[in-house]
Structures are given as C-alpha cells and as structure tokens.
C-alpha cells in the first residue's frame, strides 16, 4: 500500500488524539481572535485554557450556518484581512451566502489534503486530470485544481458545461481522471454513446471522483459500468474548505475523514447528544488546521455514521458511511420518514430510466401526496401498454420501500429542471408544513 503521507495517514489512534488536542488548543486560541468567537466565548464563559482534553470540546457551543450568515462577510476572520488571500462562498439561495476566508497557509494545507485524497485512489503525477466543476466561488473548481497540481498531475481545468467540448478534451488530451458530479457523469456517458464513442475503449479514463450531490451505491455502479472506471465518493463543503474533507479509499467502503484536519462528532440532531459509532446522526466538524477562519463544532446538517472497525487499507482515520441525506432534506409524508436517496436507489435499477428525477410533494384535497417525475432514457418500445406496465412495476417497488404509494409519471428526456447544473430533486409545495 502506498501513501501520500504514511506517518500521518497510519498514525496510531493514541498519537492522533495527542496531535488533535494540541491542534485543537491552538485553534481555540486562534478562534478567540475573531469577533464572532470572542463574543461566543464571553457569552458561554469559556476561556481557551479551559480546553484540557478532547472531551472538553463538548463544552463549546455549536456553530451553525445561521451564525456564518450573521457574521457575513468578515465577522469570523481570526487573522487580519491583509493576511487573507482568498474568499470562497457557498451558493446560498436565501439571504447572505456563507463566506470562508483563507490564508496562504490554509490554501497550502488544503491543497495537500486534496492531493492526499487523489493519491489514495491511485492517481499519480502521470495522470491527466480534468475538472468539470465550476471554478470561481464554488470550491470544487479551485480546490481540486490546487490539489491536482500538488499531486503533480497534468490538469485540464475544463470547468462546467459544454459536454461536447468536455468529450473532445477527454479524447484529445488523453484524460485519465475526472472530477464530476454524479448526475453529470451519467449524462456525459450518454452523450458519448450517442456520439458513437465507447468511453471504455475509446478513452483513457480509469478513475472518476464523484461528489457534491448525494447519490446511491447503484448510481456509482452505473457510472463505473458506463464509463469503464472506478468511481470514488468524495465529500467536502465550502465551510470546511471544500473537497478533500473525506474521501473513499480503494476499498470503496466508507470515506476516510482526515482527523489531522478536522475533529469529527456525530450527534442526534434532536437531542444534540453524541451517538455511538454505527448509528446515523448529524455530522459535526471542528477545523484544527486552519488559521484564517476556524470553525468549532460546525453543524453540517449531513447525516451519516461512523463505520466501526479498522479499514484494510491501513489508514487509521475514521470512515464515514455513504451520506444518508441531510437532516433538513428528510421528507416526512403521511407520518413516514424517508429520504430522496431511497427513491433514487430504486429508479437507478431500471435501465429504461435516465438519471434525472423530481420528487414533488403537494397537497391534493386534504391529503399530502408524493409525485415522482422520472425521465426516460430512450424510448425502447412502440407500445404504450409496455410503458404502463413499467410505471406499475416501478410504483410497486417504490411502495415496498417507502410504505406509501407515490404517483409516478414518465417524462421526456431532458425535460426536468436543473439548477447550476445540479439536478433539482425535491420540490415541496405542501400547504401544511
């Protein structure tokens, strides 16, 4: 097994915890310089010297997205602005976006973090890496760019959109690896096949890093099959730098979260108490390797769990399970709790369907109903009774999974909405929320 930073990646838990405590204490002293945490510490009567063990972290209040919005733009800066070299922000559709500031050292550390992830999935300086993320304020562009350059790969900063051009680059430059959102990966493959290009034979692609959008294991397998690649799940969020926070290793069983960069907690989103490993809860993260804008106990709203046990790859950093959705996208319909990912899992099993779907929750009369529109891939029949049978079969499987019956509708390819290239998955139009 080869590692980017063997000592840090395979560090013993005992040494890791010592390392974390030292970094945490440093981070808290640093955070106290920011207007936001200065105030927060004062309100809760905490001084940096109170944190004597990792356990003491629990005495610090959570930081939320709302706190970030209220501190817009510079209320969380823990160093003078002249020491900051870059701003990133979330796409935020309501109110102020959340802003993250970086110093040169922060960017350097982040690049290393992404390079470590890429190295872990087998990428080397001989690889040609094409990034299909939007560049600019969105972290998936520059984050991967700097990481790939640190790794030494030849980078193709193709950015988002223009599928035909992406395909031309893949072929002409001999691209071996893509960073791509899962719904776009299937779309890209479809277009290749339509153009008479078989990505498994006609391109050098062998690896794709997929993230930024929740997806199921079935969708990953479909991407791997269509493109003839290994697809690795990557997790990041702008508040925690961006891509590189957690990444799958070649085992493809859980995402290693780099604990020399962040301290990870999983809490029950209702009681806010920690849950044991293996139990699903909300991911809470504390940066311990960032100076411009430390975040303490940040509630990510992402639902996941820590996979118990050691990973055969030899890395000692904990593994997060595939994300189960977000604590705020859980759908409660007719008293049933469900996640869009459960629906996706089933839809992806039907080869007749494309990868775009839209779940609409709507009040009809006195009852809340779920409508699912799903795109066909190609028309595979000239007989509409076959389409009706297909609709019935999908509905039956969804009912078994969800314990309620959605109203399923097949729609034409390309007819469902997307926003900034990301598929829109859920629309809640209910009157009684």
């Amino acid at each position, binding site marked *: 097994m080869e590692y980017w930073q063997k000592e840090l990646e395979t560090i013993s838990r005992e040494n890791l915890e010592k390392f974390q405590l030292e970094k945490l204490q440093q981070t808290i002293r640093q955070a106290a310089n920011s207007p936001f945490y200065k105030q927060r510490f004062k309100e809760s009567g905490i001084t940096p010297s109170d944190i004597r063990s990792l356990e003491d972290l629990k005495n610090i209040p959570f930081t939320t997205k709302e706190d970030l919005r209220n501190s817009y733009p510079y209320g969380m800066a823990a160093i003078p602005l002249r020491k900051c070299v870059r701003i990133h922000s979330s796409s935020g559709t309501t109110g102020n976006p959340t802003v993250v500031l970086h110093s040169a050292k922060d960017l350097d550390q982040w690049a290393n973090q992404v390079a470590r992830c890429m190295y872990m999935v087998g990428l080397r300086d001989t690889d040609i890496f094409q990034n299909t993320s939007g560049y600019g304020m969105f972290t998936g562009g520059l984050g991967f760019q700097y990481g790939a350059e640190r790794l030494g790969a030849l980078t193709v900063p193709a950015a988002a959109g223009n599928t035909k051009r992406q395909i031309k680059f893949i072929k002409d430059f001999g691209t071996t690896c893509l960073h791509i959102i899962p719904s776009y990966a299937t779309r890209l493959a479809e277009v290749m096949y339509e153009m008479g290009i078989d990505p498994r034979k006609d391109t050098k692609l062998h690896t794709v890093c997929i993230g930024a959008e929740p997806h199921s294991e079935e969708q990953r397998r479909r991407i791997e099959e269509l493109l003839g690649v290994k697809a690795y799940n990557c997790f990041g969020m702008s508040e925690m730098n961006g891509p590189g926070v957690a990444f799958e290793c070649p085992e493809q069983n859980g995402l290693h979260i780099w604990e020399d960069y962040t301290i990870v907690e999983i809490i029950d989103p209702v009681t806010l108490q920690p849950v044991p490993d293996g139990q699903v809860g909300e991911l809470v993260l504390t940066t311990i390797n960032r100076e411009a804008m430390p975040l303490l106990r940040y509630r990510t709203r992402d639902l996941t769990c820590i996979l118990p046990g050691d990973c055969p790859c030899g890395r000692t950093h904990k593994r997060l399970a595939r994300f189960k959705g977000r604590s705020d996208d859980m759908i409660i319909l007719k008293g049933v709790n469900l996640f869009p990912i459960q629906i996706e899992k089933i839809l992806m099993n039907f080869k007749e369907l494309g990868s775009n779907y839209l779940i609409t929750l709507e009040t009809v009369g006195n009852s809340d109903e779920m409508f699912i529109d799903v795109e066909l891939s*190609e*028309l595979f*029949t*000239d*007989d509409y009774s076959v*389409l009706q049978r297909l609709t019935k079969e999908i509905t039956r499987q969804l009912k078994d999974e969800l314990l309620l019956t959605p109203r399923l*509708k097949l*729609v*034409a*390819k390309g007819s469902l909405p997307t926003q900034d290239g990301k598929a829109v998955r859920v629309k809640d139009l209910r009157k009684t929320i």
Partner: protein
Amino acid sequence: MTIYQISIFLENKYGKLSEILSILTQENIRIIAATVADTSEYGILRIIVNEPQKAFQLLKDNNISANISDVVAIQTDPTTEDFARTLTLLTKAGISIEYMYCFSVKEKAILILKTNNWDATRDVIRRENIRCINEGELVNL
C-alpha cells in the same frame, strides 16, 4: 412487406406535438401518416415518413426519446369489404391486433398493423397473397 415506423414519447404538454412535427418538417421530412395513442399523462406518437432513418437521427439529435420499428403495411381496396376480409383472415389464424391505423394515398388504402405474432402474420400474408408494400413503394405511391 414491412416499412419503418417511428414512435415518439410524447408528454401531454401544450405545444409538444407541433414542436416535434416542426423539427421534422423544417428538414423537409414528409409525414405520410401520423397517429397518437394516449394515456392521461403521456402518449406515443407514431409516424410514417418518407425518410425514416434521417427523421430518427434528427429526433435523437434533438434529445427526443424515439424508437424505430418495423410494421406491416397492407394495401387494400378502399372498401369496407376488403378491409374486413383481410382482418378476418388474420383473426382465423389466431392472430391478435395490438394496434392498427390506416390512411389512403390516391385510390389506395394502406393498413398499418402491429400483431402479437409476426411469424404467423407473415405466413397468412404469403398464403393468402395479401398485397403488402415496402419502403420503396411507399415513397413512390
């Protein structure tokens, strides 16, 4: 004895049908026959055109879900008797009709048929000397 038919997935949305038809007519595709089978949410538009392969490609290029298939095209006299006689022959052979539509060109009636058993249909057509048309004849009608 068969000709190409193009089937198109059609959402029940205002203007969809004319949108699809104008994609074809703008490229000078001649639509010889068209029929829509519908349910409450979507329909299937079936068309017979003078250049089926070109039309199919055009639809794909426009990201429209379409299918191309073979259908039997029987030529009958435009009389009810002749029409009924042909169907009776098929029925006697135990063949069911899945769908059917007809159109006329000049003095000739063309019957488009999809049956549940292609082999049996072909046997009846041969045995009974039923007049079918092929792609070339269709365009020159």
